[in-house]
């Protein structure tokens, strides 16, 4: 079944700088999936478990977080904290009988780089493969 997913991405200022390039048009030009709603946060360490769950409550079919490399976070341990919270949400989804892969953490280099777009495409493919969120009932 084909469907247009709604995916929420939480990314820190440092790893999502491409979203600002060329007056915000660069990501689109590079083929960043339109299914992804990007929410920039000062640091992914600021994200709480409730923030990620709320995205699912608000209708996201998938949620992912992009933060700094674990050994190079601007705020030292911010992206490590985010990864722990993503893991907690994954466990909770599985407890509810939902695919844990609907939530994902990526650690990417800062600045302008192709991986940011590649991971967006990867997430888009994954969620399309899984189908609509079971929370959409």
């Amino acid at each position, binding site marked *: 079944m084909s469907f247009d997913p709604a995916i929420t991405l939480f990314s820190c200022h440092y790893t999502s700088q491409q979203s600002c390039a060329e007056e915000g048009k660069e990501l689109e030009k590079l083929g960043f999936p339109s299914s992804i709603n990007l929410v920039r946060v000062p640091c992914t360490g600021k994200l709480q*478990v409730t923030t990620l769950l*709320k995205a699912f409550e608000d209708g996201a079919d998938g949620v992912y977080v992009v933060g700094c490399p674990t050994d190079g976070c601007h705020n030292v341990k911010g992206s490590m904290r985010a990864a722990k919270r993503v893991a907690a949400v994954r466990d909770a989804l599985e*407890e*509810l009988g939902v695919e844990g892969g609907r939530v994902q953490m990526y650690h990417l280099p800062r600045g302008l780089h192709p991986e940011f777009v590649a991971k967006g495409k990867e997430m888009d493919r994954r969620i399309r493969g899984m189908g609509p969120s079971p929370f959409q009932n």
Partner: protein
Amino acid sequence: MIVAERKPMSEIIEMVQDCKKVLVLACRGCVTVCSAGGEREAEILSSLIRLGMKKAGKSIEITTGSLVRQCDREYIDEIDQWDGEYDAVVSTACGVGVNFISNLRKETMVYPALNTTFFGGSAEQGEWTEQCAGCGDCVLHLTGGLCPVARCAKSLMNGPCGGSVDGRCEIHKDVECIWQSIHDRLASFNRSAQMEVIAPIRDWSSAGHGGPRKIVRDDLTV
């Protein structure tokens, strides 16, 4: 502190299956400190209940609140502020809180969100270990401040069993043999001789084996 952990979501969702409105009630006491049932955990639980019910094709209205403690009458009375907003309370307090709400509010159905596990402490962030069994007849003054009732797998009172190897308990290599630790600690205070004093057969009635326990302090009652 009292240490607890959240019940599996399948159990909690089953409890509230027939509810239309639920009050998820946090406790700002011990379970906040052990990150099991404080305000943050109650918010997470509320979200998970909403998602779980949505997945089951049901809707539920959730109010999230908290009390200073759920083990004193004056705080339980504060539940009045949510009157009419719930069919049932899901308490993220320890078992004491759930019992107290049940005792004091005859008309309120209350469900436990947590499994209450032990009296413990946290030496490392995110890790809690049992330290006290609440047995009602403390022997810590004889054992170097380390409890053989709670921390020996067999609650032995007269030294280690034959399974202690290299200071570790035979039930798990991660667990210290508390009797080895008691010996080492007493020795460091030149009190090894204490190990040779035979502890008498214990009366476990103070540990709850004689039924629910109660303390009355006349000096505090008016």
